[in-house]
């Protein structure tokens, strides 16, 4: 039960910490989930999307 105790003492004991950690966790999950799905998508569709072609057609990149 040490994990449960640590979890309780670190996060759940104080409501301010609990709510903050839920919000931060939701934010972190949202960003990482988005990044994960995007990287899968880009990998699956490698060479087909505009961002893969764009470099060929951009004239001045300065």
């Amino acid at each position: 039960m040490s994990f449960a105790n640590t979890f309780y003492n670190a996060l759940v004991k104080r409501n301010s910490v609990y709510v903050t950690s839920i919000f931060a966790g939701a934010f972190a999950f949202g960003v990482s989930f988005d990044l994960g799905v995007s990287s899968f998508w880009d990998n699956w569709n490698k060479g087909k999307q505009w961002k893969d072609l764009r470099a060929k057609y951009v004239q001045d990149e300065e």
Partner: protein
Amino acid sequence: MLSRLPASSLQSLRLSANAHSSSLLTTTVRNVSRVRYVSSNSGASSGAKSFLDSRVTLASATLFAVGSVAWYTHLYGSLPFFGEVHANSPAEEGLHPQPYPWSHNGLFDSFDHASIRRGYQVYREVCAACHSLDRIAWRNLVGVSHTADEGKALAEEVEYEDGPNDQGEMFQRPGKLSDYMPPPYPNEEAARAGNGGALPPDLSLIVKARHGGPDYIFSLLTGYVDPPAGFEIREGMNYNPYFPGNAISMARVLFDGLVEYDDGTPATTSQMAKDVTTFLNWASEPEHDERKKAGLKAVILFSALTAISLYIKRFKWSVIKSRKIIYNPPADKTHH
């Protein structure tokens, strides 16, 4: 209606049919006809009897017959054993296009944007002579098949009427990114007059607007053949097996080497047809890539949430499902 049918209605039929066939059956039939209700019958022979005469059997046989006729009708489009005469042969309704392996077919597949870019070139150099694309603006191409600079350059090639200026007069100006693609004809009448009475449809949503979608468009563009012997075709019309009615006003337009792709792809007929179909599919569904990506996220999240809620349901119910209810009768406290 079935419920109103008496259970013995089959018996009287079978009674007359079987009466002389076998003595054994006759005795059983006589047995049954004496007894009103099959369910009250007993004995080995009444098992088969009650199965044959039960309402459930009648209902399920009727259901089976109706169902198989309905299935046949659905499958072949006409009732069985009834001849039909059609003015059109199935071919004249338009040949069904073959499904093609589009690069955006799969659940996770985005459009092939190089193909969209080539397809735009085919549209601009070939199709745009007759077909408008009035729901697509130049800005829609930016970030899809062209850079912003290229988009501006493309738009500036076209003159648009704007105004009024401070003299109250309309004036011509070069196009901007926010302008929509110019139509080839000023109005429908001009378009019909230029094409022998036939109106070239707007291509903005054509892939969504036709059965078979991109497969149909590709098949139509590559499907021009000589009409079969005996097929009368009017002057100015062309034979295409994929077009309903088989006679289409649009002649074959795509021939090998018609355009020159700037990425060096050989411009064969089928390559151009594939590219322009991909472009038109993008024009019909510009949200396609984002939609599939959002769908992927939604499926992952919702299946995870479903799994969690199923687990919680089992967890909460485990106490209720595994409990025992024991009845302890109260001790008899009345002292006699």
